[in-house]
């Protein structure tokens, strides 16, 4: 312990108290986390807490966190979520997609809840399980996937220090999973703010195909932090359509990271929708390691009150003939703040890269703000790269047109907001997801009213 406390003193000022707290949590929880008896896993967690002691939480002096202050998170003394009582099945209903036929895995405060899950029967060549189960049954199998994470920030480090449970999805070569996988992550409010960690490992063999939906929601209004790390490996010709819907309570902060490695001719499509949360940060990175890979990142964020939502994407074109398409749309009301940072890296030799990025934002109140920034680093000469960003208000002519037909102001705003979001939703291949999102978008319209109601 003393060596770690020594490292903690290197962290400036008030951050030391936070480090002390998490060191304490680490000591307290170490014996009870899944796979506690596995030496390499214990070491991995130790590495995590040591790294956290070095790094602390990111500050706005860090270029990648310039617009996102996590001071409110750093000020909290989060308890590492211990297994929570499993809520009644009815509690799950609001987070499901009516009509969706899926393999469903449910997690409560970061732990697998078998009672609420319905994995269904899986075809040969598909391994879908909770990470805790894999760690109990065949820990060595998970070792390479869990060991490789670069701990860039204090959040990565905390995540690894308290790595507990999550999802394991592996498809053998040539397997196409017909029904989507739906992963539901529920946070149940407790007296003390809790830290929930989720690790998702997705690996698709050559030409395998899957669709995965991740939902994040809250029951009750307890505070806390969710950290989610998803790693995706796509072998040659594999295809993953990856949905994420973040609708946690405004008292919950959410820091998530998706790391994708794409093989030759593989396709990765992400639809990331962020509606809830207090401070939400999503880092999505895809590396196109094989020729001819395709990466599509779509995103929609809606925020009101004092919500803060930040998307940082990186597409690393490492090989020739890669294609990337990005469309992010933000709708911000109240005093909400949005951040989009889209980095495109074209490595030397990644010729014939074709990349397009678009960031479009709608501000529904005077106090709402957005910072949107493309970051292009191009080291090859025969490439097509375009990017564009817009920030605007609801169109007054459109608003008047709708009202002149008898539609009241609020409803007209809702129509236009939904209209704005529509093309992001249209890109999703699952009807049940699209239908629920269309309804959600309408109810989430951050009008000027929400500026006054929200804290």
């Amino acid at each position, binding site marked *: 312990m003393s060596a770690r406390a020594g490292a903690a003193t290197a962290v400036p000022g008030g951050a030391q108290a936070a480090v002390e707290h998490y060191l304490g949590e680490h000591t307290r929880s170490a014996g009870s986390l899944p796979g506690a008896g596995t030496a390499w896993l214990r070491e991995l967690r130790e590495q995590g807490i040591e790294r956290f002691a070095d790094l602390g939480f990111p500050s706005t002096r860090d270029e990648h966190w310039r617009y996102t202050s996590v001071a409110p998170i750093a000020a909290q003394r989060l308890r590492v979520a211990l297994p929570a009582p499993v809520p009644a099945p009815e509690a799950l209903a609001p987070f499901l997609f009516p009509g969706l036929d899926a393999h469903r895995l449910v997690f409560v405060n970061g732990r697998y809840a078998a009672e609420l899950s319905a994995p269904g029967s899986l075809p040969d060549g598909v391994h879908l399980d909770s990470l805790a189960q894999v760690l109990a049954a065949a820990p060595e199998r998970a070792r390479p996937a869990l060991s490789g994470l670069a701990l860039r920030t204090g959040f990565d480090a905390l995540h690894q220090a308290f790595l507990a449970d999550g999802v394991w999805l592996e498809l053998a070569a040539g397997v196409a999973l017909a029904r989507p996988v739906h992963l539901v992550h529920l946070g149940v409010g407790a007296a003390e703010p809790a830290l929930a960690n989720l690790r998702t490992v997705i690996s698709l063999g050559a030409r395998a195909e899957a669709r995965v939906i991740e939902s994040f929601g809250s029951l009750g209004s307890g505070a806390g932090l969710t950290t989610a790390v998803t790693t995706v490996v796509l072998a040659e010709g594999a295809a993953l359509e990856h949905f994420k819907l973040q609708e946690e309570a405004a008292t919950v902060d959410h820091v998530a990271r998706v790391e994708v490695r794409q093989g030759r001719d593989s396709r990765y499509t992400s639809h990331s929708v962020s509606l809830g949360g207090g401070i939400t940060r999503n880092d999505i990175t895809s590396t196109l390691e094989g020729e001819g890979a395709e990466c599509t990142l779509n995103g929609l964020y809606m925020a009101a009150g004092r919500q803060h939502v930040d998307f940082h994407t990186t597409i690393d074109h490492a090989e020739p003939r890669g294609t990337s398409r990005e469309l992010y749309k933000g709708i911000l009301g109240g005093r909400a703040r949005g951040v989009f940072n889209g980095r495109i890296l074209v490595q030397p030799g990644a010729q014939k890269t074709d990349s397009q990025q678009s960031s479009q934002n709608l501000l529904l109140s005077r106090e709402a703000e957005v910072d949107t920034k493309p970051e292009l680093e191009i080291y090859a000469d025969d490439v097509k790269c375009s990017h564009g960003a817009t920030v605007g208000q609801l169109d007054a002519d*459109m608003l*008047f047109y*709708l*009202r002149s037909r*008898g539609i*009241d102001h609020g409803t007209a705003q809702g*129509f*236009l907001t939904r*209209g704005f979001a*529509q093309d992001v939703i249209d890109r999703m291949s699952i009807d049940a997801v699209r239908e629920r999102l269309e309804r959600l978008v309408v109810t989430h319209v951050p009008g000027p009213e929400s500026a006054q109601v929200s804290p």
Partner: protein
Amino acid sequence: MLEIRDLHVEVDGKPILKGIDLTIRAGEVHAVMGPNGSGKSTLSHVLAGREGYTVTRGSVTFEGKDLLEMAPEIRAREGIFLAFQYPVEIPGVNNTYFLKAAVNAGRKHRGLEELDAMDFMQLVREKMKVVKMKDDLLKRSVNEGFSGGEKKRNEIFQMAMLEPKLAILDETDSGLDIDALKIVADGVNSLRSPERSMLVVTHYQRLLEYIVPDQVHVLAGGRIVKSGDRTLALELERHGYGWIEQQGVTAA
């Protein structure tokens, strides 16, 4: 039905309408003609409640109520309809969905039951015949990618669906081919009734051959400088607006 008294309107501090007086009784059709920039669209917009116009003097009453006090959506539900000179494209908002919300907002206001999907679609089919509109336009976003003529037809289709008491048609005829003009005029005529009034803004006498007005007004420089019966439109076509100036300004 509609009484405009000494209406003065400014935009960004610039006077546009400089004292309009106009009375339209139930069942009447009034045409407004006048040179470009004379304030015809401004008058239409002010009646429909568009923001950005400041009424500095005068009043507008609609069926005895103060129109200028009402929000645009309330005016619409009370029975005012503006067919836009430049209908607005609204990407991502489905035409049918929008129209259903509009129809039901009006019905609710009048204390009628809202139409369900089936009754609504039946009404749609019936009214689409009136303007011979193509089915697929309904499935698209409001006016998005519609041709100029299709947009104008869509305005009249909406009017047929909403059954207003006072329809203001702002240059609905411009941009229409000869056949479309006939169809639109037939559509408008089919909606004429002793309870329904119309204010038809146009540059062309041709439309008024189809939609025969009770009165014709000439708006110039923000004032109605001449009013008369339908023969006034013919005179204007023959002599141009200069002819009125030569006659000397005679307020209506």
